[in-house]
């Protein structure tokens, strides 16, 4: 059979909750009544990212987009739209500003919360084929710079765009370039920081894997602006595919004459080499990164001198992160004034986030600055997994903090996140639900920092270790109320005195959870209870004999044979054997097992 039309019904979690399954059933019934089941196919799809107006129904091939559809609307859709070809006006999306109905989803791009600038080519082009990049305007920005613009004009354009570094602290990129351009030296360097170390963030990897030429082009543009002829990409060795794609791209660019001598016949030379990281989060800090590229331990040093003055091999060096660079070619081709209209007053453009954790649509998203957390989590992310309650979202990785319900409507930008007690960081966004213990989350991040600290300065080397130990004590139920004061003071001193950005931000997960979830800390200490049921030392597993039907699934899956019981009669957990792994809870279909 060959379907002539398709009816797409959103099967995302949000829409499913509002009866999309029933809509499908009703649509199919109506089609069968009219003997159209062989010509029109009804199918459930993934989330449209517009849950607020769900359930969504889309008719193909004409791209008609119906919102807030009810099961009872099925008949009208089939009779009017499918049979008579007349759109059901009342179900069309109405533009809230212009008050007109929009029928074709192609013209209603604004339902799409995402705007892909840095990710513009990811998932579109074959990253190992330079021609596809060129076909999508690739290298035209470099051409424009080299043939039409002076270096200082390029810098002025980047400054005007308002682009800020996407690696963490959000330093204005144009200013950075300007600093580097002002120092004179026999050799200068452009470094791409691809040492993405934040656990749970992978946008840089995706860009390098999906669009490596954009990085090469941007580095060459930077080189031209600051007077550097050498570029270095410092990339994690754990990213073999990204390395491969980058190597292929560099080779192709050289073959095409877009890297190397006399690019575009302008006399500008630029070459790129790859340097490998070796597993050290601190090497994301630019001075540490530079030392690592020099073959040394990746320990940060005091700034000043800044890399712009004395960086790689003591030469002026400009370090930018991958996502920052990915924005550069677009700013040049479309102009700073196009770019700086996107975003908020002090944070321009878009930001890529790696959405993960207890969220339905785990993935990589790119939204204009100023989008709210609520839009990101509930519309793009499709809400919380398994219908659980939202508890917190952690942004900024180990340097960031946990934001709560009350922050959901804060427009995301560098300054707002900072003011809310977190930070942009590289763009990891981990969503947590009611089952996540915030003390444990803080402990998790501190564990990370302790492991990744270079150990050079006292506050980070010893201070974070002590923070971790206190948090551990609390999760064991052995904490005291004085410990909370100690956590607070120690965190403050570490922030105040640590040498580099890693140390200065490392207490943020502690401070933000202390601020937002103080009661949860107190519960661990005073009541020896973990409200989320996560802290092993504070809980025991029990089977409710009322609910247990004796299927034995839990006993079969228990890794330590701690569950015993006759078939078809309630089972028991031998708490002396139980390792509290939680497998039984996951396996039990009757919700008979719980923790206390």
């Amino acid at each position, binding site marked *: 059979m060959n379907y002539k039309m398709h009816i797409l019904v959103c099967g995302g979690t949000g829409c499913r909750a509002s009866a999309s399954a029933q809509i499908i059933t009703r649509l199919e019934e109506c089609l069968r009544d009219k003997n159209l089941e062989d010509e029109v196919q009804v199918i459930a799809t993934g989330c449209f990212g517009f849950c607020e107006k769900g359930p969504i129904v889309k008719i*193909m091939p004409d791209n008609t987009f119906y919102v807030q559809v009810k099961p009872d609307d099925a008949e009208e859709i089939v009779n009017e739209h499918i049979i008579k070809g007349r759109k059901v006006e009342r179900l069309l999306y109405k533009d809230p500003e212009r008050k007109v109905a929009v029928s074709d989803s192609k013209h209603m791009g604004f339902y799409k919360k995402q705007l892909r600038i840095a990710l513009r080519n990811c998932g579109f082009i074959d990253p190992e084929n330079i021609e596809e990049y060129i076909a999508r305007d690739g290298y035209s920005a470099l051409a424009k710079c080299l043939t039409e613009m002076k270096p200082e004009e390029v810098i002025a354009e980047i400054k005007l765009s308002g682009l800020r570094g996407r690696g963490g602290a959000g330093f204005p990129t144009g200013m950075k370039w300007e600093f580097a351009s002002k120092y004179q030296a026999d050799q200068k360097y452009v470094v791409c920081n691809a040492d993405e170390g934040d656990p749970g963030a992978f946008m840089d990897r995706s860009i390098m894997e999906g669009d490596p030429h954009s990085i090469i082009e941007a580095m060459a543009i930077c080189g031209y602006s600051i007077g550097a002829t050498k570029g270095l990409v410092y990339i994690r060795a754990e990213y073999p595919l990204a390395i491969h794609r980058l190597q292929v791209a560099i080779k192709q660019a050289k073959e095409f004459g877009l890297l190397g001598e006399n690019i575009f016949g302008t006399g500008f030379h630029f070459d790129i080499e790859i340097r490998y990281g070796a597993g050290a989060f601190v090497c994301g800090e630019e001075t540490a990164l530079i030392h690592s590229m020099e073959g040394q331990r990746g320990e940060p040093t005091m700034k000043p001198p800044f890399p712009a003055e004395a960086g790689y091999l003591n030469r002026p060096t400009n370090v930018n992160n991958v996502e920052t660079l990915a924005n550069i070619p677009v700013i040049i081709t479309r102009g700073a004034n196009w770019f700086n209209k996107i975003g908020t007053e002090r944070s321009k453009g878009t930001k890529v986030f790696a959405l993960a954790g207890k969220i339905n649509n785990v993935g990589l998203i790119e939204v204009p600055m100023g989008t709210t957390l609520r839009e990101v989590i509930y519309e793009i992310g499709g809400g919380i997994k398994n219908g659980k309650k939202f508890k917190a979202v952690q942004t900024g990785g180990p340097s960031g903090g946990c934001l709560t319900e009350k922050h959901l409507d804060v427009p995301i930008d560098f300054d707002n996140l900072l003011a809310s007690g977190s930070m942009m960081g590289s763009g990891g966004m981990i969503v947590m639900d009611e089952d996540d213990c915030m003390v444990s989350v803080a402990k998790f991040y501190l564990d990370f920092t302790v492991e990744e600290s270079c150990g050079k300065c006292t506050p980070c080397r010893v201070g974070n270790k002590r923070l971790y130990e206190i948090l551990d004590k609390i999760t064991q139920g052995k904490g005291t109320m004085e410990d909370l004061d100690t956590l607070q003071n120690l965190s403050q001193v570490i922030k105040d005195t640590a040498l580099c950005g890693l140390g200065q931000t490392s207490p943020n997960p502690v401070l933000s959870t202390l601020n937002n979830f103080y009661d949860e800390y107190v519960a661990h200490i005073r009541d020896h209870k973990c409200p989320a049921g996560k802290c092993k030392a504070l809980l025991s597993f029990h089977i409710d004999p009322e609910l247990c039907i004796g299927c034995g699934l839990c006993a079969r899956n228990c890794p330590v044979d701690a569950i015993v019981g006759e078939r078809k009669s309630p089972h028991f957990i031998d708490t002396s054997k139980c390792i509290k792994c939680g497998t039984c809870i996951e396996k039990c279909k009757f919700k008979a097992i719980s923790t206390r």
Partner: protein
Amino acid sequence: MEKIKSLSDLKRIKSQVQEKLDLREKSEQVENLIQIRVAMATCGIAAGSKETMNYFIEHLAENGINAVVTQTGCMGYCYAEPTVEITKPGKEPIVFGHVTPEKAEEIIQKYLKHDELVEGIIPVNYNTI
């Protein structure tokens, strides 16, 4: 390999390539290619996109389908890897998620041959420049 020596070289190559791609994407002719893009970033590969891509390459011809299979980067739908975008001539691109070899077979038999959609469609929910 021809070196790009000037701005006009770049423009020329760009229009050549674009023509080639447009031909591939927009032509109305029946014998025209179907384009299959497989997201081959680390997350995709970890979820098995290599097998998926190979499956398409190996089984399209035997089903008499004229298609070109290319790799591409991350589409962003990590929860639904492996993801595949299929553009049939004259039609909207459709992204399928969780495309295992079994799913790939289903797509070949149903969508590619008969325009019948299969479960697992991911609506594109972003604008790109």
